């Protein structure tokens, strides 16, 4: 299959069609020019350069009507298929307190200044790497969430983002979540795929925590088997801000996940929890980084993953303390459990310390299921697969029990069970 490259003319045409602001179109054109000169981001031990991960197709307004597909969603506030919002049902509290939640086209039209201020200006940049540049040049869908100053939200916001792979098309999706000064929000995101066409997904999510804000960000990612994905989640934390990340990587296809927290502000704090399960033949490469710029900033990474069948799972944990970040702390723990001899797992701790007055630590392990535990469980009558799932639950337990929300714990526990049951069928 040959794909015709997107030209400047194509961008302009699309911009006119969707009536996007001039500054955004200019950004696209600039990014498009840079694409060829930029390289794919490098992640240690994650070999993905030969994957069909690049977004190349021309921008187009997609038709994402549902026909007879069934979407599995729990209680949701926002459901998007491709670029189209098919359900929007916000808690009354959000309306009353002036919270903005809207799709990308609306965000650019109605909240252009807000987007211009934050879109890839702090947490990441269009020219950081090739995938970022492709992202800007090909972006068609997304969501803006803005929580105004000092607004404390009691109700969580739950979103579902479905990649539409019923036809071959690129899924290029952006989340911009801004918690303004002193605000608090809890957000639960679910990603998924409808359709089975092999497609790339390029998702960048920026989570901006202004001073004294607190964001609880939880996600359950379930992109499809034939999707090749770049998933970049970036937190940008100002003074005294906090982000609690809880991420469940339950995808079925190949994915490289880049989960970073820029601890810019003094005493900013990021807790990063990741659980991942790889099954079948898939490869999931997860690069989790906390970078301490701010004095007394704190970044903790805890990631546990399980590998079944012939799949791979690579965890990189990076703690980077910048010179001048006095009193900063970076801790990390990465553990991988392999259930099959054909699986491949890696847990790489990387510490980059440029200041003296800091605390940093790491723990990493790759191991197999303890035969003694299996024997004990099975001696009570439970079959091998159930016993395996119990051991896995135990292994993931320390991450699950550390999640700040009971609801998220439940959602993730159910998803883990489902992914494991499916994965075991393929052993």
């Amino acid at each position, binding site marked *: 299959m040959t794909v015709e490259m997107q030209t400047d003319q194509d961008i302009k045409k699309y911009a006119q069609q969707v009536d996007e602001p001039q500054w955004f179109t200019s950004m696209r054109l600039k990014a498009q020019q840079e694409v060829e000169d930029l390289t794919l981001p490098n992640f240690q031990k994650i070999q993905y350069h030969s994957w069909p991960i690049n977004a190349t197709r021309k921008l187009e307004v997609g038709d994402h009507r549902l026909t007879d597909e069934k979407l599995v969603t729990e209680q949701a506030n926002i459901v998007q298929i491709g670029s189209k919002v098919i359900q929007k049902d916000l808690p009354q509290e959000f309306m009353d307190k002036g919270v903005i939640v809207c799709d990308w086209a609306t965000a650019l039209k109605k909240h252009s200044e807000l987007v211009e201020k934050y879109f890839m200006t702090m947490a990441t940049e269009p020219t950081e790497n090739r995938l970022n540049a492709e992202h800007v040049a090909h972006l068609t869908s997304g969501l803006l969430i803005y929580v105004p100053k000092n607004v404390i939200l009691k109700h969580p916001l739950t979103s579902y983002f479905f990649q539409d792979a019923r036809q071959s098309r690129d899924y290029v999706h952006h989340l911009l979540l801004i918690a303004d000064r002193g605000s608090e929000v809890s957000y639960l995101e679910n990603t998924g795929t409808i359709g089975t066409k092999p497609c790339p997904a390029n998702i960048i999510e920026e989570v901006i925590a202004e001073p004294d804000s607190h964001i609880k960000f939880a996600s359950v990612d379930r992109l499809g088997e034939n999707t090749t994905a770049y998933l970049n989640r970036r937190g940008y934390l100002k003074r005294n801000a906090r982000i609690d990340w809880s991420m469940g990587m339950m995808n079925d296809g190949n994915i490289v996940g880049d989960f970073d927290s820029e601890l810019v502000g003094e005493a900013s704090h990021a807790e990063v929890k990741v659980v991942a399960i790889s099954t079948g033949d898939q490869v999931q490469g997860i690069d989790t980084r906390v970078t301490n710029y701010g004095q007394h900033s704190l970044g903790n990474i805890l990631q546990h993953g399980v590998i079944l069948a012939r799949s791979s799972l690579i965890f990189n944990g990076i703690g980077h303390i910048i010179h001048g970040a006095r009193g900063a702390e970076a801790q990390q723990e990465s553990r991988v459990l392999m259930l099959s001899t054909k699986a491949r797992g890696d847990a790489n701790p990387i510490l980059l310390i440029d200041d003296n007055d800091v605390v940093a630590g790491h723990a990493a392990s790759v191991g197999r299921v303890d035969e003694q535990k299996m024997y004990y*469980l099975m*001696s*009570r*009558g*439970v*079959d*091998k697969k159930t016993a395996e799932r119990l051991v896995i639950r135990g292994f993931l*337990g*320390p991450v699950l029990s550390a999640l700040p929300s009971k609801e998220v714990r439940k959602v993730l526990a159910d998803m883990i069970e489902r992914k494991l049951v499916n994965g075991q069928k393929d052993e």
Partner: protein
Amino acid sequence: MATLEVKDLHVKAKEEEKEILTGVNLKMTTGEIHAIMGPNGTGKSTLSETIMGNPNYEVLKGDILINGQSIIGLPVDQRARAGLFLAMQYPAEIPGITNAEFIRAAINSRRAEDDQMPIPAFLKKLDHTLKTLDMTEEMSERYLNEGFSGGEKKRNEILQLMMIEPKFAILDEIDSGLDIDALKVVSRGVNAMRGPKFGSLIITHYQRLLNYIKPDVVHVMMGGKIVKSGDAELAVKLEDEGYAGLRDELGLDVKLVDEE
């Protein structure tokens, strides 16, 4: 009535050459409690682990049968569902799953998908059993054996035993590391199970436990086989005369591990 039979069983550890069991013969039925006594290193634990199906042991010769059916080719979980239970000397610790959850999963593994034990019935039985064993409700909500003391683990084995209600329970040195109060509690649990549908094989090297759980038959193992069987009096006699006395009486050429 069910039967458990061990026939001319020869066993070695997977990684080693030496035969540990050198021809064990044993037959018991539900309604009976048998005790196996013997000095250290004589193969008592190997026997219990082999009956249960521990993959670390290899059967060289002989057979194990439940109701006349060989179970030697069955994996451990199928043996458990066939009615066997082993209260282990060193139970594994499994974080992340609570005692109660696990026990329920174990009970339900014996029942059909559409006939799982209802939660209220389960909780009622659990509550009652916990009381019998002087255990708090909190123990059932803790992770399986995680951070349990030696005594708590033993008690927890008996809790599972009473909840699962196997046909045959092998108790592998359930008395080791127990103080006298805990020993009484554990014995109370086993005695509560006594009845025509339950049989137990108690492995111990002290007679003390048998003061609390009266065996119908006592077997003495030495050098990898049963060398003498008798009634409860045999255990008392052993306590008085020691294993060396019996060995010499039987004229056996067996070296006792603890003998210098």
